[in-house]
C-alpha cells in the first residue's frame, strides 16, 4: 500500500467524485519501495564429504527511510528459509536492520526467499570449490531425502512434502550435465569462457496460517449455482493478472460438470465480495483455491442429496461424474445438474431438512505453509575480452505440487526467471554520494529485454502437498527464487579458471572483466 492510494480514496470521499492517481516511472522509483538490499557474511562448517555441520550468518538489511507494509518481515523470511533444501544441523543468525536515507525496502517478488536461496546456493558452490567436488553432488549429499518429509528445519519450519533428489536428477539428465561439462572442458582448452550454473531451491508459499499473519491467513470463497445454470464464484484473492479467473473456472467446470463459459469469477469489489485477504505470498490457489474447493464440496454434497431424492435412492449411492448424478452400478438411472438446479430452486419437493438453492460459502484456514521446490541450470558464455555474458541455455525443473493450468504455471515461471536473471545481471538501484537516486528512469535502470534472454526449457515434477485439498503449492515467485543464484553460479563457474570465487550482483560486463583480470573476488 502506498500513501497516495489512501489519499486518492480520501479525496474521492471528500469530493464525492472518482479520483484517479497515476505515478510516473521516476515517482515509482523514488517514492514507492525497493527490493532486496541485504549484506550477508557467512561462515560454514562442513565435514570432509561436504556435508553441512553448521552455518553462522551476519545479516545486514537496509530498510530504507521508512517502515513500509512488510519492511522487516522480508529479512525475517530470509532467516527462516536459510536452510534451503538441506539438512542443516545448526544455524546462528544475527540480523540487523538499519534505517538509511534511501527509498524503503519492502516485499518484492520472492520477498526474502531469493536472498536466502542466493546465500545457501552460493554456499553450496563454495563448498564444492573448496573440496573440489561437483556442485550437483554437494547438493545431493545435503538434501533432505524424500522419505524424511514432513521435515522440521533448523529454523523450525515444517516442510510439507518434497523430493529434491528427483528434481535435480531430472534436471541434470534433461540438460545433459555430463555432456555440458565435457563441452566446457573442450572450450576451455580453446581459450573460451563457459560456465554452468546449478541451483536448487525450496520456498515458502501458500501463506499462511493465521497465527503467522497479523490480518489473518485464511481465504474466503462463495459459490452460487444460479437457477440459470450460471455459476458465480466470489473469491477474496482479488487476482490482478495471476490468472485465477481461469484456474478457478477450470476447477468449477471440473468439479460441477458445467461448461467453463458458465462460470463467472467475481472479485475485487468489496460491496459484492466482502471478505478476503488477497493474492500474495503465492497463496491464490493454495489458500483461495482451497476455499473454493471446500465450497464445491458442500455444493456437490447438497446436489447429491437432491439427486438421491429425485432418484429415490440413498445419498451414499449417488455418484457425481461430469454433469450426471447417478446411482452406482445402474448407469441408466441418473439426473443431470440441470435437474438438480430445477429441483433446488422450484423447491416444491425438497429433501428432508434441505434448504432451497445451491450455494455455499467457506473459509479455508491453512494448517501450514506449502514448500514448492525445484532445480535450475543455466549455461553462460563470456566474452573474454569484454566480460559480456550471454545466457545460452536455461533449463528448469520446478515442482509446485498439483498443476491446474500448465500454461499459467509456465507463464509465472517465465516472468519469474526473467526477473531473477535480471537481478543477477542488470538491475540495480544506484545512489550517488549525496544520496540522490541515479537510476531514476528506465533509461538508466536496466530491465531485462526479451533479446537479452534465452528461451527457457521448462519441466516439472509433481509432489502434491497434504496442506490443502487441491494438493497445489503455489508458483508465483518460484522463478525469481531459483534463477538468481543459478546465473551467478554459472558466471563464477565460468571464471573459476581465473581463480575467481565470487562475483557480486548485478554481474555487469565491467565487473566480470575486472574479476577476470584480477582473479580476485569482487
Amino acid at each position, binding site marked *: 500500500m502506498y500513501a497516495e492510494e489512501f489519499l486518492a480514496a480520501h479525496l474521492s470521499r471528500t469530493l464525492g467524485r472518482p479520483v484517479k492517481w497515476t505515478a*510516473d516511472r*521516476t515517482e515509482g522509483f523514488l517514492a514507492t519501495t525497493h527490493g532486496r538490499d541485504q549484506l550477508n557474511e557467512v561462515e560454514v562448517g562442513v565435514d570432509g564429504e561436504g556435508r553441512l555441520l553448521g552455518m553462522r550468518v551476519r545479516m545486514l538489511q537496509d530498510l530504507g527511510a521508512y517502515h513500509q507494509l512488510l519492511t522487516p518481515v522480508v529479512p525475517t523470511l530470509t532467516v527462516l528459509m536459510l536452510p534451503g533444501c538441506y539438512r542443516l544441523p545448526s544455524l546462528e543468525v544475527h540480523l540487523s536492520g538499519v534505517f538509511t536515507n534511501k527509498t524503503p525496502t519492502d516485499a518484492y517478488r520472492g520477498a526474502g526467499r531469493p536472498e536466502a536461496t542466493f546465500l545457501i546456493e552460493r554456499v553450496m558452490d563454495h563448498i564444492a570449490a573448496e573440496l573440489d567436488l561437483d556442485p550437483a553432488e554437494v547438493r545431493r549429499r545435503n538434501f533432505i531425502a524424500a522419505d524424511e518429509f514432513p521435515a522440521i528445519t533448523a529454523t523450525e519450519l515444517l516442510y510439507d512434502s518434497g523430493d529434491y533428489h528427483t528434481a535435480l536428477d531430472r534436471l541434470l539428465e534433461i540438460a545433459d550435465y555430463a555432456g555440458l561439462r565435457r563441452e566446457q572442458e573442450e572450450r576451455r582448452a580453446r581459450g573460451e569462457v563457459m560456465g554452468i550454473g546449478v541451483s536448487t531451491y525450496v520456498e515458502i508459499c501458500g501463506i499462511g496460517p493465521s497465527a503467522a499473519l497479523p490480518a489473518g491467513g485464511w481465504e474466503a470463497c462463495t459459490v452460487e449455482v444460479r437457477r440459470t445454470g450460471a455459476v458465480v464464484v466470489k473469491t477474496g484473492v482479488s487476482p490482478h493478472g495471476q490468472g485465477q479467473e481461469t484456474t478457478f473456472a477450470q476447477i468449477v467446470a471440473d468439479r460441477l460438470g458445467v461448461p467453463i463459459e458458465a462460470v463467472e469469477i467475481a472479485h475485487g469489489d468489496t460491496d459484492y465480495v466482502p471478505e478476503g485477504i488477497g493474492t500474495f505470498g503465492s497463496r491464490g490457489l493454495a489458500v483461495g483455491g482451497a476455499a473454493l474447493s471446500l465450497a464445491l464440496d458442500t455444493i456437490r454434497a447438497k446436489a447429491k442429496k437432491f439427486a438421491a431424492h429425485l432418484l429415490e435412492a440413498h445419498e451414499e449411492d449417488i455418484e457425481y461424474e461430469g454433469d450426471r448424478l447417478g446411482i452406482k452400478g445402474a448407469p441408466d438411472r441418473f439426473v443431470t445438474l440441470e435437474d438438480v438446479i430445477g429441483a433446488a430452486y422450484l423447491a416444491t419437493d425438497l429433501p428432508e431438512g434441505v434448504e432451497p438453492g445451491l450455494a455455499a460459502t467457506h473459509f479455508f484456514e491453512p494448517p501450514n505453509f506449502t514448500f514448492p521446490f525445484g532445480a535450475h541450470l543455466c549455461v553462460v558464455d563470456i566474452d573474454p*575480452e*569484454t566480460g*559480456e555474458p550471454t545466457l545460452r541455455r536455461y533449463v528448469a525443473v520446478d515442482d509446485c505440487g498439483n498443476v491446474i493450468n500448465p500454461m499459467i504455471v509456465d507463464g509465472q515461471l517465465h516472468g519469474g526467471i526473467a526477473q531473477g536473471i535480471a537481478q543477477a*545481471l*542488470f538491475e540495480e538501484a*544506484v545512489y*550517488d554520494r549525496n544520496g540522490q537516486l*541515479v*537510476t531514476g528512469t*528506465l*533509461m*538508466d*535502470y*536496466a*530491465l531485462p*529485454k526479451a533479446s*537479452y534472454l534465452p528461451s527457457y526449457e521448462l519441466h516439472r515434477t509433481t509432489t502434491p502437498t497434504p496442506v490443502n485439498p487441491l494438493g497445489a503449492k503455489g508458483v508465483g515467485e518460484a522463478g525469481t527464487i531459483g534463477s538468481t543464484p543459478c546465473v551467478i553460479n554459472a558466471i563464477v563457474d565460468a571464471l573459476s579458471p581465473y581463480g575467481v570465487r565470487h562475483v557480486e550482483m548485478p554481474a*555487469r*560486463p*565491467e565487473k566480470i*572483466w*575486472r574479476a577476470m583480470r584480477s582473479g580476485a573476488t569482487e
Partner: protein
Amino acid sequence: MLPAEFDYAAPASLDEALALLAGGTNIRILAGGQSLLPTLKLRLDRPDLVVDLRKVPELSYIREEDGEIAIGALTTYADLVASDLIDSGVARCLAEAAASVGDLQVRNLGTIGGSLSHADPAADIPAAALALDASLVARSEEGDRTISAGDFFHGLWATALKPSELLREIRFRMPANGGGAYEKLRQAASGFALVGAAAVAEMDGGTIEAMRVALTGVSSGPFRLHALEDRLVGETLSEELVREACDKAGEAIESPLSDAHASAEYRVAMAGVTARRAILRAAGQWR
C-alpha cells in the same frame, strides 16, 4: 513529468518549415521525437515552439547519386536497416549502427537527422557519420550549407547547426573497394553505447588504402582516431597489425567518461577492443 507548455506547428513544406525557423529563436524541430520528447518531459528544455517535420514530404529517402549515397534527414533507423544499399560496402557501418540503436520502437521512429542534430555523446550514428567522412547538408532560408562530419560535432549535444538551419541530408562516397563495420557495447538499460566504434576501410588487395575509425560513448562527443588510422594506412592487413595498433587506442580519449554504467578504465580498455573488431570486419570484407 509532463512537458512545459509550447506552441506546435506542422508545416507541409520545407519552405514553410524554414520560414518558421527564421521567425524565432527558442524553437525545436521534432523529427522522431525519441530524444526531444524525453528532454521536454524532464523539462531539461522548454522551447516556445515545436516545429514538427513529419509532414514535410521531401525529407525521407535513400538515393544513389554519382557514386554517392544521399539520405534524407527524416529517414528512420528502420528504413536504414531495411535498405540493401545501406547494407553494403562502407555504408554497412551505418546499417550496423542503426540496427544497434535502442529497441524496435525507437528504430521505427528515430531518424538519422535527429540523431546527428541531437549529438548525444553516446549516440551511434555520429560515429558512423565520422567514419564515413559524411557531408551534412544544412538548409536555411538562405539555402544549403554543407558541413563535413568532422566539423559538425561540437561536444555535448552541440553541433555546427545554426538556429535558423535544419539538417536536410547526409551524403557520403561509396568506393567500390570499401567496407564498413560498427561494434558496440551497450548500456543495458537504454541501449546507448558504453563504447561504440565505427570503421570504414578502403582496400587494395591486402593493403589498407584508407582507414577511418571513430569512437562514441567514451567522452563528451564522437571523434576520429587519426593516429590509429595513420598507423594502418599503407600497411598490409593482418590481425597482429591491427591488434598492436589498437592496444593503445584508448589512450587517445580525452577525459574519458566515468558514470554509473561504466568506469573510465573500462571504457578506455574497451575502446581498443571494439575498434579492433570493427576494423578487422570492415577491412576483412575486402580481403
